[in-house]
């Protein structure tokens, strides 16, 4: 993984421009948990730690919610059916006025809009802004109605974007199919610091060895059945061995013989703090997914916690685990092979310690600090052509033709 660095050792044609003013737009209500909100929050913090000045504009419904210092509320959101579920969005003349004011007062060097096609502050910001615009696409829904809208209004907003970023190969494909053009791939980061250290859950990992699993319990693709089968084969020879299973949904334990059931501990859904503790609670962490994972977020979190990992050898996992160097791999869907590999790990504390160190090292490539540096590289690339280094033009409210012409004159005196 390439590590992008900012602000050091530049050739003359690209002098360092640290300390950018970045305006980030999040279309979904900040006080409702979600992937995009999490992404924007982590990104804002990582950029702030790099010395950039960040302001995040997002709808905020709950007045009693205590927002982080970088958040600017964009008004109360309304529930709207969007993209197959109900999203809480802000749209309309009042939201538009707020967006405009935020852009005018923010004097940003670059605007970073998330899900720019979302009919919320994101689309409003696209319309209202003139200047360097970066956009990140998260949706990977091939039948996304919002994305397939080729209306002039939407197109006129999206064609202002200077740089498109997709968080996964699937998101990139969705974008290319609906809008044409291209995007660079920058995956989600994992906040390594948040997972690095925690107390194990009470009573874990225990004396007789333990294997951990996190993920939806009732989704076959997560592969829990493979792990249960492997456990059923190992447990009779290892009297103290226990299985820690955590995640939402109902687990189907019908394949596990009655006398082994009590050694399968199902914890159900965990809150954020307990989830971190769960990664530290087992001797061996297992990711038995059968496929379909574009990027193993559970896997990277386990690696950040320094777990000794045994994972199925699907391409995504093999890539994250350096082909087996940062965690053991078993043949996908093969419980015998899993039992063999997991057994070898349980028997060797040295091997586990070795994999733990290797995992902590390999996961750095997926840390938010690394990912945010790559995003900052995108900002610099956009600004390299726009400001001609010596004079930053920045983001202004769009005033139609006049503003467009004025900016041209401003840039090439």
């Amino acid at each position, binding site marked *: 993984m390439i590590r992008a660095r900012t602000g050091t050792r530049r050739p003359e044609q690209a002098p360092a421009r640290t300390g950018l003013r970045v305006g980030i737009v999040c279309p979904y209500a900040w006080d409702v948990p979600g992937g995009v909100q999490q992404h924007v929050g982590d990104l804002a913090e990582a950029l702030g730690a790099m010395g950039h000045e960040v302001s995040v504009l997002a709808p905020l419904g709950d007045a009693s919610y205590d927002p982080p210092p970088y958040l600017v509320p964009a008004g109360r959101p309304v529930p709207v059916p969007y993209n197959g579920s109900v999203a809480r969005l802000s749209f309309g003349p009042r939201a538009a006025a707020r967006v405009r004011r935020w852009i005018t007062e923010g004097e940003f060097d670059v605007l970073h809009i998330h899900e720019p096609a979302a009919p919320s502050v994101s689309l409003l910001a696209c319309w209202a802004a003139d200047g360097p615009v970066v956009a990140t696409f998260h949706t990977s829904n091939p039948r996304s109605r919002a994305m397939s809208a080729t209306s002039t209004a939407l197109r006129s907003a999206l064609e202002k974007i200077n740089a498109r970023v997709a968080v996964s190969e699937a998101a990139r494909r969705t974008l290319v199919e609906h809008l044409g053009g291209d995007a660079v791939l920058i995956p989600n980061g994992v906040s390594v610091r948040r997972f690095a250290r925690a107390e194990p859950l009470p009573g874990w990992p225990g004396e007789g060895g333990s294997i951990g699993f996190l993920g939806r319990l009732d989704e076959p693709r997560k592969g829990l059945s493979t792990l249960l089968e492997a456990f059923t084969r190992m447990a009779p020879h290892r009297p103290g061995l226990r299985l820690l299973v955590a995640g939402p949904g109902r687990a189907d334990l019908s394949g596990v013989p009655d006398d082994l059931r009590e050694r399968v501990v199902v914890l159900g859904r965990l809150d954020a703090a307990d989830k971190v503790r769960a990664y530290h609670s087992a001797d061996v962490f297992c990711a038995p997914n059968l496929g379909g994972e574009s990027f193993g977020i559970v896997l990277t979190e386990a690696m950040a916690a320094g777990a000794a990992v045994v994972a199925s050898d699907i391409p995504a996992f093999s890539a994250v685990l350096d082909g087996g160097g940062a965690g053991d791999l078993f043949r996908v869907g093969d419980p015998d092979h899993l039992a063999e590999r997991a057994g070898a790990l349980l028997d060797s504390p040295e091997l586990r310690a070795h994999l733990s160190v290797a995992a902590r090292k390999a996961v750095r490539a997926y840390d938010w600090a690394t990912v945010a540096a790559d995003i900052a590289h995108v900002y610099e*690339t956009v600004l390299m052509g726009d400001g001609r280094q010596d004079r930053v033009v920045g983001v202004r409210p769009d005033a139609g033709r006049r503003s467009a012409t004025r900016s041209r004159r401003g840039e090439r005196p």
Partner: protein
Amino acid sequence: MLVLLGFYLSWRATRLDRLHHRVETARAALDAALLRRAAAVLDLAADPGLDPGTARNLAEAANGARRAGEGERELAESELSRILRASLDPSEAGPSGDRLDEVAVAARGVHLARVFHNDAVSDTRRARRSRVVRLLGLAGTAALPEYFEMDDRPPAR
């Protein structure tokens, strides 16, 4: 009615103007990114830790890319990408980390800038295919922008 039509056409012309501007800035960014990479490779070629043969190949390819004329740039830059991949075998101990880091970051920058440039070209070319734009000549005398096609796969780390 005529006023509305006038507004509409002016809006279309503004959009097109903006697209051409986007291509121009993206092209400037791409040129800067390519220059930065060539400079980083020349810097790396001067590293005493590199064997002389590899250093010479790298310097030649970087200079070739910098001096290439308009019609040959894509080939010369692709050749530089190829030589970089062939020369920088991550399994071998080699030059110092800082110079290698700068080459890796600069190579990533070339990829970013090229994707953004070609994306802008594709939006602009689509807009110029529209019937209104072609009939009324809203694009004026601006040349149809061209894609920049090159091999920009970075060296392995």
